[in-house]
């Protein structure tokens, strides 16, 4: 029998418009290859990330959720990523508390100059998610 295909996790990647989305653009311009598992949603700022977006993505069947913004001190809107850091810390803690695997939620700071870092963040996330398989804990089991 052939080896089993590795699980292909579905990732929603929320990227801030100014740094991380621009960083992912740079990965493109530099033709850095990375897995196609993460579908980007560009948001104005990591500070605009409502915790509901993350819960909702899991609820709709995401295997992993990535939030990426500007490095601390570099936020285009000055303070947005500070607010995001605090809010999403709470979300991360709550997810882990409930018993959702730690690796399902990830946050990174990727600047517009860090194309290679963005590619690496996605690669690492996909690798970490593969062994976890499909995310069923928070997924709505609607018929």
């Amino acid at each position: 029998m052939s080896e089993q295909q590795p699980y292909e996790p579905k990732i929603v990647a929320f990227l801030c418009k100014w740094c991380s989305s621009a960083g992912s653009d740079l990965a493109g311009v530099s033709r850095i290859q990375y897995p196609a598992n993460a579908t980007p949603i560009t948001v104005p700022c990591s500070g605009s990330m409502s915790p509901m977006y993350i819960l909702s993505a899991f609820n709709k069947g995401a295997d992993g959720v990535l939030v990426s913004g500007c490095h601390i001190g570099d936020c285009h809107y000055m303070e947005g990523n500070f607010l995001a850091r605090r809010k999403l810390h709470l979300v991360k803690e709550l997810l882990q508390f409930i018993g959702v695997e730690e690796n399902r939620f990830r946050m990174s700071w990727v600047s517009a100059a860090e194309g290679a870092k963005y590619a690496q963040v996605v690669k690492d996330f996909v690798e970490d998610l593969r062994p976890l398989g499909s995310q069923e804990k928070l997924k709505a089991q609607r018929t």
Partner: protein
Amino acid sequence: MTKKRTGVFVCHCGTNIAATVDVSRLAKEMAGEETVAFSRDYVYMCSDPGQNSVIEAIKENNLDSVVVTCCSPNLHEKTFRDNAARAGISGFTCEIANIREQCSWVHKNRDEATAKAIKISRSAVRRVARNQSLEPIAVPVTRRVMVIGGGIAGIQASLDIANAGLEVVLVEKLATIGGHMLQLSETFPTLDCSQCILSPKMVEVSRHPKITLMTYSEVQEVSGAVGNFRVKILQKPTYVDPEACKLCDECTVVCPVVVPNEHDLGLTSRRAIHIPFAQAIPASYTLDEDSCLGLNPIRCGKCKDVCEAGAINYDMLPKTVVEDVGAIVVATGFDLYPQEKILEYGAGNVEDVLDGLQFERLCSASGATKGHVLRPSDQKEPKDVVFIQCVGSRDPAQHCAYCSKICCMYTAKHARLYKHHVPDGRAYVFYIDIRSGGKGYEEFVQRAMEEDETVYLRGRVSKLYRKDGKVRVLGTDTLTGENVEIDADMVVLALAMQPSKGTEEAAKVLKIGRDKDGFLAEAHPKLKPVESVTGGIYLAGCAQGPKDIPETVSQASAAAAKVIGLLSSDTLNHAPTVARVRRSHCTGCEMCVTACPYKAIRLENGKAVVNEVLCEGCGSCSATCLRAAIEVKNVTQLQVFDMIEACLTV
């Protein structure tokens, strides 16, 4: 709300997208979306025929919204929004799905890339389905400009802007303007005196009725946005009243504190109270607080006693000044890469090993040796001088990966200057390559070799150390394949340029991005080389990357032109994608008011109210509100919710 009629336009981008993404399948999939009334693919959507086809499709199919699936919105969002507006619909009902940078360029597998492109595009279609037709908000602008940094870039930008009739506030960290250019002896490729060409410009700045000069000052805080920035500046006390000071120099004679003179890079010394150099602008003395014995008549007070003009005041306090400006030019310059980091060349501890700027001061008539090239250790005329290029540059393993661009030229200049000062001396240059692109540059280097008989050795210096009162330089000449050993009287290192400390600080305060090397990032490497990523903030000079004087002056004038263009009318268009309150849900809890970085929200009769001119649409309010009672137009929570679903639909 009536259902949208969206047109989807799938761009092949030649083969950039089409080679990896099945564009016809993508167009077909999008046609199946509930709100999509028209969908097609085309080879170059951004071309003239491409754009015209979008306009035709909008008119023929009565479309009210557009999704273009193509490259990054940073490139063509404006193109397609303007195009949509030409077709008579709001540009804000046009969204870009980035399937090139974020998809076709980073994936190879056609099926996977196509599937991802479908998700990205569907997500944009669902978003557009709830986009509002918006029109830009006209905002009154402040027709004043701040220039940060008083080197040649800042001086040029200030003069150009002021000459166009706009008020300029020029902020400089040091006690005088002039920057590094003032430290130079002569400039390539003409060998004209640096001070002679710069000083008149400095005087012009000080006399210009439209320029307010703030030296010894630092920008502390910037708020607001393009058209209306509010800048807080800290003016450090100089303890000398420039109006009263008669420049008699009596104070420096009595001052007991001797410290290295920064202007001469430590080759000379100065007193705690000093004038940076004779032609300083503003022409006044500064009492350097850090080295002064204590600003206290009980402890010293000699300078105050001797000052007949009564210009010295120990009680002077730092002052915070607030300036409102519409645009900012950042010209904060470079520093030399620290010699301490070059371990292979003695980490700055080998005597008579100088950096390029120190050599400039040795050559300069106003410098330590009054224009005689004398080596620092024994004040003798050096007969063998080795110049080493690319020190710290082009060395990704240990130092900077980039080329510092000006070192080939200034090393040639140094060699020539040296030979002009010491005609019987011998000059050696170690180089990797010679980069002398520029008008008259190659000829300049050739003259260094031929007329001035500089010995150019292609190769690197592996080591240098002190031996028998000389500096022994070990290197290789890769053209002959032989090892070279020179006992030099003096060595000059062409150290890399790096962003100055002030550049780093300015980036933090202004929240503008930096590139991987720490230089300020331009909005686009080719098409927007003087704009920062943030609207209304422009870049000039070496803060943006290594460059020589002509290039710096060009960029400064370019930045000035951009500023003049921006402030040419009384109003600016402000993006209408600002926060809006759903009043029936708002309880007036004030969390959004606290979270807003722009102080754009206030409570009125117990409900949040947004000042649309101040709002930048960051969405911090929306993420903080527990009731989704405040949202950014065209990025509402419902829209994100729909986009999430689109991303997860297979």
